[in-house]
């Protein structure tokens, strides 16, 4: 049923429909509305015997989820920003143990300087943690990705982050078609854990592995992650067939089939980008957009196919590692050996809006061959100079 609803409420409703057994959370903006809504639903007895656990830190939130998942419970948590970093050690552990936890990340900048607004520096910083990372394009997509995330996680025994732009999506009210419980039930079977702590069949989980087998463990994890990439579109298509709308799972391609120039982005900015593409096309520019949904595992072949024959690729970077190049752009570049030039444009850090006009300015500059390999969109040079002269 289509409702005018806040993104966090929509995600919480869909997560509840996925029948989690254990939901644990430590509050951090802008994740709070999601877990508040889940706390209320669990108190109201929905879903079933679900347990909501208020913990003392994000480290504990993910650790409770680890214990619960290893005991055969469907476990869910949500966090953002500093909280994601505080659970970093447990992120690698959950992935290494192959525990299919689903976590919403309400994407937010990392301090210092402290900043509660949206960019992707939190989840990007954990790109190597072994988690699958999916980036939601809008609130409908954010809601739909959660059942897909649970099914994928449990099928391949890997944890999944659903990355959702903080405030921009979590706090935005827009129409969302919420899946019925029966639709989610038809798609998502009860959790059948691959290994479980069970007194009737005791196993040891988390043994120490030395040099004689560690490489093989990592190799198999890599193979498994690639398998997740194969399964993801299949599962998303299954869910899409049940709910009757498309659910982009790897990429979301927009007017890019014949475009000379391709602009790649992740998250809610893809919506703005599509508008910019429309306006530029109206002006005769030959440009298309590609929303990247699956960032981990990275879809090298899809990117290669999408960028084939383009003269130029622009990547919007919602995080910037000081002293290096754009993170996503570097991987796009490595997917296109001998391919077109790839420009990283750092945009929308710490909540700065990415506007259509700024996007059009950047794309137009690229068309003229005037866009450097790495640039910062809307950089306030006056502010930069003032800061320089003050030191």
């Amino acid at each position: 049923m289509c409702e005018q609803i806040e993104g966090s409420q929509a995600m919480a409703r869909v997560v509840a429909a996925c029948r989690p057994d254990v939901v644990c959370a430590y509050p951090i903006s802008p994740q709070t509305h999601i877990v508040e809504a889940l706390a209320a639903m669990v108190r109201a007895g929905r879903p079933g015997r679900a347990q909501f656990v208020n913990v003392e830190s994000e480290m504990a939130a993910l650790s409770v989820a680890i214990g619960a998942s290893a005991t055969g419970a469907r476990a869910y948590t949500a966090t953002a920003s500093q909280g994601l970093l505080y659970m970093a050690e447990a992120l690698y552990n959950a992935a290494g143990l192959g525990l299919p936890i689903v976590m919403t990340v309400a994407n937010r900048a990392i301090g210092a300087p402290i900043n509660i607004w949206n960019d992707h520096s939190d989840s990007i910083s954990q790109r190597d943690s072994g988690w699958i990372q999916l980036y939601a394009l809008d609130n409908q997509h954010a809601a739909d990705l959660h059942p897909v995330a649970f099914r994928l996680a449990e099928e391949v025994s890997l944890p999944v982050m659903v990355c959702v732009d903080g405030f921009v999506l979590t706090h935005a009210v827009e129409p969302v078609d919420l899946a019925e419980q029966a639709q989610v039930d038809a798609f998502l079977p009860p959790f059948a854990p691959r290994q479980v702590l069970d007194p009737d069949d005791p196993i040891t989980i988390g043994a120490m592995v030395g040099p004689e087998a560690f490489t093989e463990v990592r190799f198999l994890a890599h193979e498994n992650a690639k398998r997740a990439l194969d399964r993801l579109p299949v599962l998303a298509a299954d869910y899409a067939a049940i709910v009757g709308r498309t659910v982009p799972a790897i990429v979301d391609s927009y007017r890019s089939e014949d475009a000379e120039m391709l602009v790649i982005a992740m998250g809610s900015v893809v919506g703005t980008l599509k508008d910019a593409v429309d306006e530029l096309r109206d002006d005769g520019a030959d440009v298309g957009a590609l929303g990247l949904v699956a960032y981990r595992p990275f879809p090298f072949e899809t990117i290669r196919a999408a960028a084939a024959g383009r003269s130029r690729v622009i990547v919007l970077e919602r995080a910037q590692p000081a002293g290096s190049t754009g993170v996503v752009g570097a991987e796009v570049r490595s997917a296109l050996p001998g391919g077109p030039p790839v420009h990283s444009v750092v945009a929308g850090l710490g909540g700065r809006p990415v506007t259509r006009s700024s996007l059009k300015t950047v794309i137009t500059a690229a068309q003229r061959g005037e866009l450097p390999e790495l640039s910062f969109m809307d950089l306030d040079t006056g502010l930069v100079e003032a800061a320089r002269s003050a030191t």
Partner: protein
Amino acid sequence: MTTQRLKFYQVGSFAVGNRLAAPDQRTVQARPDRANALTSGHRACRGCGEALGARFVQDAAARAAEGRLISVNATGCLEVFSTPFPETAWQVPWIHSLFGNAPSVASGVAYALRAKGDTRTRVLGQGGDGGTVDIGFASLSGMFERNDDVLFVCYDNQGYMNTGVQRSGATPPAARTATTPALGPTPGNPFGQGKDAPRIAAAHRIPYVATATIADLHDLEDKVAAAMALHGARYLHVLVPCPLGWGSASAETVKLARLAVDTALFPLYEARGGEVTAVTRLRRQPVPVEQYLRPQKRYRHLFEPGIDTATLDRIQLIADANIAEYGLAPEEGS
């Protein structure tokens, strides 16, 4: 429920063999149907107090849970020596996640059981003193204050022994560790530092807290049984001498644990709901701390080249204060 005193003991050690005890007073280890949760063949050092303690704790807990026990382990010696892949010494379902999160993982197991409607299976968390009183302390405190249905056991060997004997928040004053060397004007670990973890646990007003050692395994098992008879957050702090870290003879592990009690440096008590409800009084007049300290190379700087009576006196004052605080003095006529 501390323990009815056994009537038979060998003079001197107070130890008693199972064959001298009535059948209902024999340890779990004496029974052929014990869980044997931590089975033989693991890689602990000779004379490891933690291995001994963990085996007794696990089997007593498994008996109380009628075999339905899940164990959660912090990183540390116990985890390392018991699970070198592809081997495992554990015959109970067992998980190791990280160093600082074992109480939280144990909570997660407990919540999963509740969500699944499993009211029979019980949860035991365990770690060393580093994983418990230092890096895992926030996790432990959170588990306590939520009163999660977990028994957490700290095997306290008073330092980071797995990483090569560094100082922890449970290292006693004057003890030499690799990071509190026996050098300078005040050699060893400073006085006036460290945490009283069992008392802090009790301050959470959880249902059950107890201290125990591997010198009195009957008492240890009884305290595990008492903890397992209750639900909610429970804590057991077990002193487990470490020959490597303490610089003691492998054969003296049990003896040193006994001396820690007999000197009153390690008081034995139970606390329920935040109040100390039972104390094990000394059986004889307290042993001077020097007898406990001298066999341990971590205190050698107190005896060589000359005897550091000032520091020995300070440590004796700690024992004396314990006697006064907990009322440990032996009964008249002992």
